[in-house]
């Protein structure tokens, strides 16, 4: 059964076994404002936990999206190229960034669950 985790950098990760889908949270998209461009890593990219994985650009600024865990990208969301605003309209569904294979599932222990993330955002 799939489980959802959240990072302090406002990425979400839905994990099913050793595969996972990553995106940014509704809180993050609201902070960024209208997304006009998203650059996602192509399949095969090796990502390291906490390092830059993707870039999102709003009208005003560029922001990095970090890899919440270490792993290898299996699929990038091609829909974001034509419609980057999906990140605003559906951040936790259609606006996903990439899927990856987990290198070390124990890294998930350092992430937050839904309740902990809600409390974290409430404290900001």
């Amino acid at each position, binding site marked *: 059964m799939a489980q959802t985790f959240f990072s302090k950098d406002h990425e979400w990760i839905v994990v099913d076994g050793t595969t996972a889908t990553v995106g940014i949270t509704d809180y993050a998209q609201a902070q960024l*404002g*209208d997304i*006009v461009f998203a650059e996602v890593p192509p399949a095969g990219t090796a990502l390291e936990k906490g390092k830059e994985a993707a*870039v999102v*650009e709003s*009208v*005003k600024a*560029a922001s990095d999206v970090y890899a919440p865990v270490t792993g290898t990208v299996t699929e990038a969301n091609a829909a974001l190229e034509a419609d980057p605003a999906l990140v605003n309209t559906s951040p936790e569904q259609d606006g996903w960034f990439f899927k990856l294979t987990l290198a070390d599932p124990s890294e998930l222990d350092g992430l937050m669950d839904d309740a902990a993330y809600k409390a974290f955002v409430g404290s900001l």
Partner: protein
Amino acid sequence: MTDAPAQTDGVEDDDFIDEGPAALPLDAWHEAKGARMVPFAGYRMPIQYDGIMPEHHWVREHAGLFDVSHMGQLLLSGDGLDAAIEALVPADVKGLTIGRMRYSLLLNETGGILDDLMLSRWRDGLYMVVNGAVKYDDLAHLREYLPDEITINHLDDRALLALQGPEAAVALARIVTGEYGLDALSFMTGGRYEIAGVEAWISRSGYTGEDGFEISIPAVAAEKVADALCAQPEVKPIGLGARDSLRLEADLPLYGHDLDEETTPIAANLGFALSKRRREEGGFPGHERLMIEREQGAVLKRVGLVVEGRQPVREGAPVLDGEGNAVGRVTSGGFSPTLQKPIAMAYVPTASAVPGTAITLEQRGKLFTGIVTPMPFVPHRYHRKGA
């Protein structure tokens, strides 16, 4: 738009209290309207309310209210005023008749730009609006170089609002009274009016490329006037974020980003600010160098670029030549909400400053192509006299 708030070194000094950015007259008003506040030019200012994109479109289609009270408002007066100001700026100040307004530049000895500003002739002197981030430097410069006969009055008890957009005139006309109707004002003229019973200096000018007005009022009455304006169905408050994307589309440079002390009016493509009489007569800082540059061209020139693809190229990205050497730089860059593509202002070698030329840019190790494009990117819709 990345100006840090004014800060003092000396964190280890126990007596030092960092008070952070200062509050402007409409500080609480912005918060009540749901603004996200950020430090800018030493003040807390609204970056956005509903979001940059919808605010940008609202101004292009209706009318937006901007709080620009961080800007410096000065009133200069005294014997020999025009000649004294002409010694510091390249504008024809003597030819500026009552109610007229002119864009000008405060220049240093080598023709570099200390600030860009607006000059208006009031009955009681010259009214000057300067950039917020450098207003205290400007005041120091004026105090040093203007003769003792000239009085410099910093109108820091006044707020400054801008109402911009194709519906600005109809909205403002509903609540304004004056000796002359608002329709007596054409682009770059101003006069005395009352808004909701508050005395106001209103000019037909702005920083978006749209028709609109800039409104100087007593700071104590700022909330009353802002409420009266926002009560009009055409008007919504607009933040600094949209102000930046609007002015970029309109070819309006931002001091500290597109203009600085190392940049001359010729390089900045602001040659129009050197009036004909002043070019011939001289008598302003940097005249000799600027006349040579005007004939021969500056090394670099400010141009507009439409960037290929969807990704914006931001301020600071280098312009590369064929061998990969940095030969210029992007000074403003973002996504144009009107054109729905990335645009930028950049300084490029003058030989490349020709529309249609492909310019190579680099950002985060990636190469981009920008096509030199005539500015403004979005046509101006000023209310010109006789139009």
